[in-house]
Structure formats: structure tokens, C-alpha cells
């Protein structure tokens, strides 16, 4: 702007032309900019709206079916009446089993990768493996679980098989979150500990892991939400259409929320009749997953407030 002002006094025809053109290109630039911002804003809006839309749709259709009896009773009359209590419980068991299996395994793997492993071919192969595991479709995990746990190891279709299958599915999420949390622990903490003549293992166990644990848990909870909501991995390995009794051991089949929705909506004889139950079950499942995520968010904000480095 200053340059333009200083040349004003000796404005020749040529300069006037240049100035005119600069003005034109400037307005064009602002036009492009506002178009681009508009596109960006629109894409953010579409995402927010679709999430809101799904939630509103499920709540609107499902809220009528949900009451205390729905949450605490067995299904009745070929699933057309009654509640979904066994499915809620089944999903709880399956998810808990998946956590018990994959959390320790995932944390140990990430400690190896981020603290011990030196960069080389083996580590690269392991990483490629983990990243690819994250991209495998969930139905493939289901078939894998069927082949390995149900058939080969002869666990049968049961909580154990389903939990292991879900656990493997969420391993990449847990490993990713744990590695990130471990890397976020300042290197100076490790140095300080090692310089005191503390061994590497003790340094990891006493300093690195405690400081990374909140981050590990937050990231892992998001994986747990996914495990609770998946249908395909459990349909061949754990889920039953209907069980008259609650499971007695980890070798029993269970009902599960996502599978319950799936069978009511596709395979039942009263698909139209059971619509309210389907939406009600979907609402319960979404509420469950969102509340698990909410816990993760609360933990994270609590840690951020307490973070002291």
C-alpha cells in the first residue's frame, strides 16, 4: 500500500494501467478466497449435520420403545415384544472380554515399539502389519475368528471367541493410541531417570508408563466404543439370535445389541412389526457407545487440566 501511495505523485499512463490491473486481480483473489472458505465451511457443516441427523432420527424413532421394562426384560413372543436385557448384557461381556485381551497385549506391543525397538526391517514389517490390520474390513475379522477360535481351537460360538475376535480388531487402535501417549512423555523424564542410575525397564515402568497411562486409556476407550458397536466380527463367533437364559460361562453364546438390530431388521418374520424395537435397540447402542466416548473425553480434559509439563 505504501508503495502505491508513494508513486501517486508521478503517476504515468503505464502505471495507472498497472494499478488498475492490480486492483482487478485483487478483487479476483478475494473472490477465490471467499469461495474456497465457503467450500470448507460447507464440508464442516455437512459432517456436523449428518451426525446430528443420524442422532435425531434414531432418538425420534427409538425413544418411544425405551422404558425400564425394555432395558431389564427378556424378549417375548418371537422378539416382537419384551426387552433387550440379554443383548445389553451380552454386548457388555463381549466388550469387557475384548478389553481384557487387547489392552495388555496392545500396551506391551507399543512399549516394545516405542521404547525398545531400534529402527530396522523387523520393526518396519511389524508396523506395516499393524497399519494393515487397521484397514481390514470387520467381516474379515469375523471370518478369521470363525476359522481360528470357533473351528480350529474348538471354542465354539461363544463369548471367548467373540471377545478375542473383537480384541484383535481393536488392537491397532490401542497400539496407535499407546504409542502416541508414550511418545508424548518428554524425553527429559527418561534422561533424568537414567542419569540417576535407574535401569531402562524401571524407567519405563516407574516414569514413562504412569505418565502415558491416561493417554493410553483415552485412546483405548475409543477403540472399545468401536468393539461394542460392530456386528460382523461377532455374528459368526459369539452372537445368538435368541437365548432363553443368560450365559453361565465364557463358553456360552450371547445375544448382542448390534446383532439384535441386524436380525430384527433383516431376518425376522415380523420386520415391520418390530421396527420400534429395532430403533429402540439402536438408540440404546448409540447411547452406550457415546457414553463410553464421553468418558474418554472427560478423562482427557481432566488430564489436560492436570498436565504439568
Amino acid at each position, binding site marked *: 500500500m505504501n508503495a502505491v501511495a508513494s508513486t501517486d505523485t508521478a503517476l504515468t499512463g503505464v502505471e495507472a494501467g498497472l494499478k488498475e490491473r492490480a486492483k482487478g486481480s485483487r478483487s479476483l483473489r478475494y473472490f477465490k478466497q471467499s469461495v474456497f472458505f465457503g467450500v470448507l465451511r460447507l464440508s464442516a457443516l455437512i459432517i456436523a449435520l449428518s451426525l446430528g441427523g443420524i442422532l435425531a432420527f434414531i432418538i425420534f424413532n427409538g425413544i418411544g420403545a425405551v422404558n425400564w421394562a425394555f432395558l431389564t426384560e427378556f424378549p417375548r413372543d418371537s422378539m416382537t415384544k419384551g426387552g433387550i436385557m440379554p443383548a445389553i448384557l451380552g454386548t457388555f461381556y463381549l466388550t469387557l472380554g475384548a478389553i481384557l485381551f487387547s489392552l495388555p497385549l496392545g500396551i506391551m506391543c507399543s512399549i516394545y515399539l516405542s521404547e525398545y525397538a*531400534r*529402527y530396522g526391517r523387523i520393526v518396519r514389517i511389524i508396523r506395516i502389519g499393524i497399519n494393515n490390520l487397521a484397514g481390514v474390513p470387520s467381516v474379515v475379522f469375523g471370518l478369521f475368528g470363525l476359522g481360528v477360535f470357533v473351528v480350529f481351537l474348538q471354542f465354539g460360538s461363544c463369548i471367548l471367541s467373540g471377545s478375542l475376535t473383537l480384541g484383535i480388531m481393536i488392537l491397532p487402535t490401542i497400539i496407535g493410541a499407546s504409542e502416541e501417549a508414550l511418545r508424548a512423555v*518428554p524425553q*527429559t*523424564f*527418561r*534422561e*533424568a*531417570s*537414567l*542419569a*540417576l*542410575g*535407574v*535401569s531402562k525397564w*524401571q524407567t519405563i515402568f*516407574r*516414569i514413562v508408563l504412569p*505418565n502415558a497411562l491416561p493417554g493410553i486409556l483415552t485412546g483405548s476407550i475409543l477403540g472399545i466404543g468401536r468393539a461394542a458397536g460392530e456386528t460382523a466380527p461377532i455374528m459368526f463367533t459369539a452372537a445368538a439370535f435368541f437365548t432363553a437364559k443368560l450365559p453361565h460361562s465364557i463358553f456360552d453364546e450371547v445375544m448382542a445389541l448390534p446383532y439384535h438390530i441386524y436380525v430384527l431388521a433383516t431376518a425376522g418374520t415380523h420386520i415391520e412389526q418390530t421396527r420400534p424395537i429395532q430403533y429402540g435397540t439402536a438408540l440404546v447402542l448409540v447411547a452406550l457407545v457415546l457414553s463410553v466416548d464421553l468418558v474418554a473425553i472427560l478423562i482427557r480434559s481432566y488430564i489436560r487440566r492436570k498436565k*504439568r*509439563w
Partner: protein
Amino acid sequence: METYDFDTNIVIARSVNFFYGSFRALTDINVGFERNKVTALIGPSGCGKSTLLRLLNRMNDLIDGARVEGEILFEGKDIYAPNVDPVDIRRKIGMVFQKPNPFPKSIFSNITYGPKLSGNCSNLELDALVEQSLKAAALWDEVKDILGKSAMTLSGGQQQRLCIARALAMKPDVLLMDEPTSALDPISTAKIEELIDELKRTYTIIIVTHNMQQAARVSDYTGFFYLGKLIEFNRTEKIFTNPDVRQTEDYITGRFG
């Protein structure tokens, strides 16, 4: 090159070369660090002084692709010999870093962390050890009523003295200090310098510093490094008044660096 004897020198480096991958960071370093004296290592950034310091307690082991040639003798024994556990070396040769790095624990636990893990301390002894270490680091009066509070609530200068106390709690023989005051204000710096003067009665101190006045104030011996070589090693008065080597004089008078 003059030779160093083990009676007066607690740490001796002999023909030490150090490589980061193919980059040669130190070339043929021969130096002895005298017991109960303060030795300052000075020189421009990247000259290798911090590298040498971190070699003395094997902190450079943490770096991938690092390689040491030559010998570093601590009380006559090569600390890079294959049967030596770096953990043992670091218990005898403590370190204080450039930025204060207390653990996000209480003041008390910061001090007891090392002694507890090295095992051989009862709880009663720990209480005494905390007091003794904090007194030695001239921090006791400021924190004696808040030992349970997080170390992160202390000021930068207090944190650095806590780090010194933490290192002293391991009862080391040598204390390495890597620019311990570069992140501190002048008042905190003065306190640490006073402390160094106090500590040399009990410990051998080797300090890396960018601040030449600091080297002149606190040290008995000074080594000047340039491009990975030890250019001159002499008594501090000599280095700062009448150095033998032209390069040293140029650096000290601010002609380069």
C-alpha cells in the same frame, strides 16, 4: 600430550574419538578431571563439549549409531569396557541437565526415586536422606514445609536445585552439569554458582557452560573446545588471563564463537 595420574584425577579420557554415525564429533581427546575441583568445558555451540560430558556417564548410549573409541577411565577402570553396566556408572557419576527436569511427583518422591530403586534404603533413612540432600542443594529452607507438593509448582531455579539434590541423593562421586543455569534468571544462577562452590568440597564437578564469566567464576580448570578438539586445557586463571593458544584467546575475547 601430558599424562594424567589416577591419584589426583578421578576421571581420565585417553585418546577418545566419538562418532554420530559417520560424523566425527570428538577427535583425540586427552584430559583428566581432578578430584574435588570444578572443571569447566567451554567453546562455541557444536564444539563437542556436551558430547564429552555425556560420554562420561554413558548417556550417549541412548543415541542410535553412536560409537566411542579410546578409553574413559573412572577411578582407573574403563567405563566402556564390555563387562561394565552403565547403570552402575550413572550411580557414581550423576548429571544435572540444561533444563530443570523434575519428575511430575512430589518434592519428596523426586529425591527418593533413585535411592529407593537402587534398593538399600529404609524409610527412616529416606527421611534423613531427603533432608540431607535438600540441605546440600541449598533448597531445604524453602521447601521443608511443602515436601508433599508437586515439584512442578516450584520456580525454575528451585526446580534446578531440586534436580541437583536428586542427583546428590544417589551419593555420587562426580557431578556432571550440562549448562545448568542457561534456562535460569540471574538470581537463580547466582544461587547455583554459590552452590557449586560449596559442593566441590565433597564432589568433583564438571560443568559445561556457554557463559565465560561463569566458567571464570566457578571453575578451577577450564577446557576450551573447538570443532571437536580440545584446543587448550589449563588452570582457569591462566586460560582467562594468558592462554597458551591463540584460538583460545580469540574465543575468550569474543573475536569469534
